[in-house]
C-alpha cells in the first residue's frame, strides 16, 4: 500500500486472488529457503564448521542424557530383586524364629522367606571372609539369626519395600531390619545429581550454540552490508532482508541436528559393544535405548530452534544497524 500516493497501483493492490497470494507466499519462502541453502553450499568449509559446532554441542548432552537414562533403567532392574534382611534379637531361639517365618509366609507382600541361623551365619562368614580364626577368640557367636525376606515383585519398588520394612520392624522378634537397596538409593541420588549436571551442561552448551550461530549470522550480515544498503534504498522492509538470514539459521539447525543424531548413534553403538561384555559378567540384560524416531525429532526440533534463535537475535540487532547514510 502506498503511504504517500493514494490509489497508486502496487503489488498488494493488484487483483491477485487469495489462493494465488497464498501460493506465492509459499513459493517465495521456498525459493528463499533454497537460496539460503545454496549460500551455505557455496562456502562449504565455513558452513561445515558452524554445523559441526552445533552438532557436537548437541551430541555431548544428548549422549550423557541417554547414558543416565539407561543407567536408571538398569538400577530399576536391580531394585526388582531387592531383599530385606531382618536381624533378629539375639535372645530369639530357632523355634521362635520358625514361628516368625511361619507368620511371615502368609503375608501377601512377601514372596519367600529364608532363615539363616546364627550358626549358619558364622560358618558363612568364616568361609567367605577369611577372618575365621579371629572369631575363635570370641566367647560367643556374634551373629544374630537372620531372616531374608524377598518381597513379591509388586512390593519390590523402593517405596513399597520401605513400607514393608517398617511393618516388619514392628514384629516382636526383629531387632534390626535392613533393606539391601539402600546403596542403590544412594546411587539413585547420585544419578539425579548427574542428571542435573547434564541439564546444566546442556543449558550452557545451548547458550554457546546460540551465541556462535548469532555471531556467524552477524558476519554473514556484515559481508552483505552493501547489498543490504541497496535493498533498503529501494524500499525493502527489515523483515524482507532478515528472512534469508533466518533461513540460514534454520539450515544450520537442521543440519547440525542431523549431524548430532548420527554422532550420538555411533557413540552409543560403540559404547554398547564394550558395555555388553561388562554387563554379561553381571548377567544383566541391557539394551541401550534412546535412538528412536522420537529422539531424532526432538533433537532436530531443538537444534532448529537454537539455530533460529541465534539468527533471530542477530538479525534483530544487526540488520537494524545497517542504514543508508
Amino acid at each position, binding site marked *: *500500500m*502506498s*503511504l*504517500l*500516493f493514494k490509489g*497508486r*497501483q*502496487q*503489488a*498488494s493492490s*493488484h487483483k*491477485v486472488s487469495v489462493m*494465488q497470494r497464498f501460493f*506465492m507466499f509459499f513459493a*517465495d519462502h521456498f525459493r528463499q529457503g533454497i537460496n539460503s541453502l545454496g549460500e551455505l553450499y557455496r562456502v562449504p568449509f565455513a558452513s561445515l564448521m558452524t554445523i559441526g559446532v552445533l552438532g557436537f554441542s548437541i551430541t555431548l548432552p544428548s549422549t550423557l542424557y541417554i547414558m543416565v537414562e539407561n543407567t536408571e533403567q538398569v538400577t530399576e532392574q536391580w531394585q526388582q530383586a531387592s531383599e530385606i534382611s531382618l536381624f533378629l534379637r539375639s535372645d530369639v531361639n530357632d523355634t521362635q524364629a520358625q514361628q516368625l517365618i511361619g507368620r511371615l509366609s502368609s503375608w501377601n507382600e512377601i514372596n519367600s522367606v529364608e532363615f539363616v541361623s546364627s550358626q549358619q551365619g558364622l560358618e558363612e562368614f568364616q568361609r567367605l571372609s577369611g577372618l575365621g580364626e579371629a572369631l575363635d577368640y570370641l566367647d560367643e557367636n556374634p551373629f544374630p539369626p537372620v531372616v531374608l525376606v524377598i518381597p513379591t515383585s509388586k512390593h519390590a519398588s523402593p517405596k513399597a519395600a520401605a513400607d514393608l520394612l517398617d511393618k516388619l520392624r514392628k514384629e516382636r522378634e526383629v531387632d534390626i531390619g535392613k533393606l539391601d537397596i539402600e546403596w542403590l538409593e544412594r546411587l539413585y541420588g547420585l544419578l539425579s545429581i548427574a542428571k542435573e549436571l547434564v541439564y546444566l551442561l546442556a543449558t550452557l552448551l545451548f547458550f554457546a550454540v546460540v551465541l556462535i550461530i548469532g555471531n556467524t549470522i552477524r558476519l554473514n550480515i556484515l559481508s552483505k552490508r*552493501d*547489498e543490504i*544498503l*541497496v*535493498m*533498503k*534504498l*529501494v*524500499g*525493502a*522492509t*527489515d523483515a*524482507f532482508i532478515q528472512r534469508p538470514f533466518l533461513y540460514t539459521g534454520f539450515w544450520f539447525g537442521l543440519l547440525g541436528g542431523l549431524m548430532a543424531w548420527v554422532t550420538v548413534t555411533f557413540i552409543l553403538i560403540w559404547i554398547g559393544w564394550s558395555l555388553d561384555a561388562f554387563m554379561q559378567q553381571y548377567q544383566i540384560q541391557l539394551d541401550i535405548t534412546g535412538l528412536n524416531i522420537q529422539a531424532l525429532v526432538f533433537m532436530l526440533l531443538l537444534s532448529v530452534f537454537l539455530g533460529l534463535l541465534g539468527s533471530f537475535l542477530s538479525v534483530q540487532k544487526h540488520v537494524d544497524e545497517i*542504514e*543508508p*547514510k
Partner: protein
Amino acid sequence: MIKFEEVSKTYPGGQQALSKVDFHVEQGEMAFLTGHSGAGKSTLLKLISLMERPNVGRVLINGHDLGKVKRKQVAYIRRDIGMIFQSHQLLMGKSVFDNVALPLIIEGHTRKTIFKRVDAALEMVGLRDKTKSLPITLSGGEQQRVGIARAVVNRPPLLLADEPTGNLDPKLSMEIIRLFEDFNSAGVSVFIATHDLGLIARMKYRTLTLKGGRMITDGLSQQGGWS
C-alpha cells in the same frame, strides 16, 4: 510534490548542512538542484528519501509530512520514490535482470508481472540485450541506465537523482537527461541534483541553487547563477 518548509539540518558535531530551506516542486515538474560540493545538495535529497531527518521545519511529499513517518514505514515511503545514485548502487554479483527486478520482488509481485515490467524498463533505457550481464561488465553509462531502469520499474510518481551524470561525458549525460525528460512527460515528477552547470544551461528547467546550506536562487537556469 516535494515541499520544504523552513527546513534546517545540523549534523551531530555542529556542522550546519541546511538552514531555512523553503521551496516547492510541483507535481509533474522537472527541476534541478545545484550548488558546490558541500552546499547541502546531498543532505537535501537525504531528507526526501528519509535517510536523514530535519532538525527544524517540515518536509512534505504529496502533502504528507515526512516527520510523521515512523521508522517501520520508511521502507514503504521509499517504494514511492525512484532513486538514482551517482555510484549506481547496483548489486555487482547479480545480473542486470535481478538488479532491476529487486524493487518488484520486494513488493511481492508475481513472476509474470516481474518479467513484463523488467523487460519494459530495460527497453526504455535501451539495455534489453544486456539482461543477463553482470553490472561489472557494463560501461559507466550503461550501469547508470541499469540504475535508472531499477528506479522506474515500479513506476513511482517521483524520481530523485543524485548526480546521475557525475562520471559521464557530455553526450552520455545528455542521453540520461533525455531519459528523465521522457519519464517527466509521462507525468513523473523529477528532481535532479547535479553540479554539471553546462548541462543545465542547455535546458530551460527550473533550477534551485544552494550555497552554504541556503537556497540562493530559485528559478529558470541562469548561467553562473551561483558562481
